[in-house]
């Protein structure tokens, strides 16, 4: 499946590429803002990332998953830009395209179903949950978003962010614990810790 996708990209299948972009663009937009603050620079990094994917797909060795590889390209470029950006005043903020801001905007709850997590899935609780996730420090937010919102495996997240599994687990646990504290009113019990 993954191999077929890589081969399709190599032979220039536009639909496969468009599907990959649709799948990863939201999380890439979120991730890039962890590293660079300027929306204009973030947009550039996103475009550079896709260009890197287009140019690098032939040499991609498939040691990690495709999405992890794309994510790594983004993280590396974003870090490079972040270093440069930190030495300059982000003038570009002022003339940024407003849709960029929107595109990397806050998490929104999907219409909640009825089956599980009954205490949390009421509309209001879900809005609060989104706010609680948004309020996390960037590294915790990134790990929780990849693992719990996007459903990535632990291995993929470690590869994507270049961190060790134990570190990833600590960040995730910390993130979930913080969100749980914020969600305490909705969880219906007070003061217990695990």
């Amino acid at each position: 499946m993954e191999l077929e996708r890589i081969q399709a990209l190599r032979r220039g299948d536009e639909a496969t590429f468009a599907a990959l972009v649709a799948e990863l663009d939201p999380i890439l937009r979120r991730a890039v803002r962890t590293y660079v603050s300027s929306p204009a620079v973030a947009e550039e990094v996103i475009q550079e990332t896709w260009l890197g994917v287009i140019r690098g797909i032939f040499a991609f060795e498939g040691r990690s998953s495709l999405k992890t590889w794309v994510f790594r390209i983004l993280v590396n470029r974003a870090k490079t830009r972040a270093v440069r950006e930190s030495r300059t005043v982000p003038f570009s903020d002022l003339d940024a395209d407003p849709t960029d801001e929107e595109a990397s905007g806050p998490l929104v709850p999907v219409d909640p179903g009825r089956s599980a997590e009954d205490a949390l899935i009421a509309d209001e609780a879900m809005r609060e949950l989104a706010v609680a996730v948004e309020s996390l420090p960037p590294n915790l937010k990134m790990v929780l978003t990849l693992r719990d919102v996007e459903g990535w495996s632990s291995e993929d997240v470690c590869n994507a962010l270049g961190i060790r599994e134990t570190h990833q687990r600590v960040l995730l646990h910390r993130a979930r614990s913080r969100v749980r504290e914020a969600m305490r009113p909705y969880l219906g019990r007070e003061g217990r810790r695990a």
Partner: protein
Amino acid sequence: MTVSGPMSCREFSARAGAYLDGALVGPDLERFEAHRDRCGSCRAGLAELQAIAGAARRLRLPAGAGDSRAVQLFRDHGLHAPRPRIANLPLGIGNQTAARGDHIAFLWDSEAEFAATADFLATGFARGEAGVLVGHEPGNTRILAALTSRGANVAELTRSGLLVVESRRGTAEALLAAVDGRIKAAVDRGLSGVRVLGNLSFGSPDVETLRLEALVTDAVRLYPNVVLCAFDAARVTSGALGRDAFQCHPMVLQRGELRESEAYVPAPEFLADLDRGT
């Protein structure tokens, strides 16, 4: 770390992340589950963490606005994007000219013709281009000797990074990535082009060599480079080498004439055939 005895609430909390990740095994898992079954408040706390993780799955990220721009990049810069072939680079062998992105099978008939592959590289150096030599040690050695006999200072070229020798190793993708990195580095340095000379096919080509040859054609198309792969013509006529030379190379150079290979098979089809073992 394995601790015996019952688990404390503090340790339970520290291990909850690993448990939820399915990373607790053996005695650690047993002790964790024993505590969970025994301690109501830890059990409830764990359930809350699971509920947070489960509820977060119902959140979604807003769709990106940049899709169409990325797809346009793919159209403009994808390796498949058709480009006119403009042959204006002196090959250095005979009086032939090659085009940027050419992947050529050079079928040599004599030792003198094999040694002429050094002229291909030397012509590039004279034009301010970099050279990458990829192949088995014996062939590399012969080509370097031929370069020296043509007055090139191999040591100096190597020191300055203009000449790089890559020996055959690992998977097709690994070697391709190494060559790709060399080419990008040269382009980043502002060199006007890169000449890649391959002498991979002394024996019968293995599957990895065929995969490499098939992938190279599209991989190099983007760059200002020419890839010339040397084949012993006498051996090409007999079977497997012919497949490598004629099916993987869009261009063939033989007896001083550069022409399109009529038997060329585009990489996706070639690789699919290779996977089927045909």
